[in-house]
C-alpha cells in the first residue's frame, strides 16, 4: 500500500492540531485561508470574549509516525524571512495522519526581558512533544507577553 496522499496528511494534521490546541478552555480557533502564512489563529479568551490576544499556528504535517519533525537551516532561514513583519507570537505544531502525538516549537517566541515584552525568532529549532503541561505553559507565556504589552501601552 502506498504512502498517504498530501491532502490526507494535511487535513488530518490540521484536525489534530485543532483538537489538541483547543483541549483546554479559554482558547478560540479560526482556520485561515491558504497563503496567509499561518494555518490557524488562536485567540486566548478566558471568558469567550474577543481579546485580541492572538497566537498564529503553522501546521506541519508529518508523513511518518516514526519521525520526530526536523527543520533544515534553509527552511529556518525561509521561515524567518516569511515572518519578518509579523507582530504577534507564532508557533509550529506537527502531526502525522495516523498518530495522536503532536510536536511543538516556537517560530516567533514571546518573552519578557526586565519586564519588557520581546518578540524574537526562536533560538531553538527543535520540537518538543505536546502535553497538557506544555499547552498550559504556552497560554501562560502568551498571556504574560500581552499583559506586559498592555502595561507598556498604559
Amino acid at each position, binding site marked *: 500500500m502506498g504512502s498517504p496522499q498530501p491532502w490526507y496528511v494535511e487535513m488530518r494534521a490540521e*484536525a489534530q492540531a485543532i483538537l489538541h490546541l483547543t483541549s483546554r478552555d479559554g482558547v478560540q480557533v479560526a482556520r485561515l485561508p491558504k497563503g496567509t502564512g499561518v494555518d490557524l489563529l488562536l485567540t486566548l479568551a478566558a471568558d469567550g470574549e474577543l481579546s485580541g490576544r492572538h497566537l498564529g499556528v503553522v501546521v506541519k504535517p508529518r508523513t511518518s509516525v516514526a519521525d520526530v519533525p526536523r527543520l533544515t537551516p534553509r527552511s529556518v532561514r525561509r521561515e524567518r524571512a516569511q515572518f519578518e513583519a509579523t507582530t504577534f507570537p507564532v508557533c509550529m505544531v506537527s502531526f502525522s495522519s495516523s498518530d495522536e502525538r503532536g510536536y511543538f516549537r516556537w517560530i516567533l517566541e514571546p518573552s519578557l526581558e526586565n519586564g519588557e515584552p520581546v518578540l524574537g525568532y526562536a533560538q531553538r529549532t527543535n520540537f518538543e512533544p505536546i502535553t497538557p503541561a506544555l499547552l498550559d505553559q504556552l497560554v501562560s507565556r502568551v498571556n504574560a507577553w500581552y499583559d506586559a504589552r498592555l502595561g507598556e501601552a498604559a
Partner: protein
Amino acid sequence: MNDVIGARGESRFLMLITEPHDGEQPIFRAQRLGDKWPAVDFLVELMGSDGVAGFFFVQVKTTRQGYTERDRRLKVTVPQHTVARLASFPAPTYVVGIDDVAGIGYVVSANGERLTNVASVPSDFPINRENRERLWSEVRRYWSSRLPGSFTSVFNDPAWGMS
C-alpha cells in the same frame, strides 16, 4: 453553539470519517463547505479504486451535554428547518452527532424519514470501521442505481418510526 465546540466537532468528524481502512488509505474524503451552505457542513466523497464513487452530505452537531438517561441518545439539536432542508437534497444526507467529551461520533440518516426537529441522535451507529463500510456501500448503491431517487438508509433512527 460555542464556536470552539463546533470547530472541535468538525475536526473530530474529519478524523473519524477518514480513518484509514486498508493500510493507510481512507475510504472517504471530506470537504468542508463553509458558512454559505447553511444546512450542511461537509461534502463527503467515496474513494474507490477507480476514483470518486459517489458522495453524500453531512450536518455535524457537537455537544458536551452527554446522553439521555433512558435510552442513551446524544443530546444534540437539529432544528426543523434544517431537517427539512437536508431531506430535500437530491443526494444521501446524514446528521452526525459528536460527543466532544468522549471523542465519539454517531451517524443517523436524514433523508426524509422525519421532518420535525431533532432533539437527540441515537448511539446505535458509532462511526467505526463497520459503519464506515456500511455507509460507503449504501451510498455507493444509491449512485450506482440507474435512477437514483428513493433512498432507504440502514442508519435510521429507531425512535423516529415510533413517533
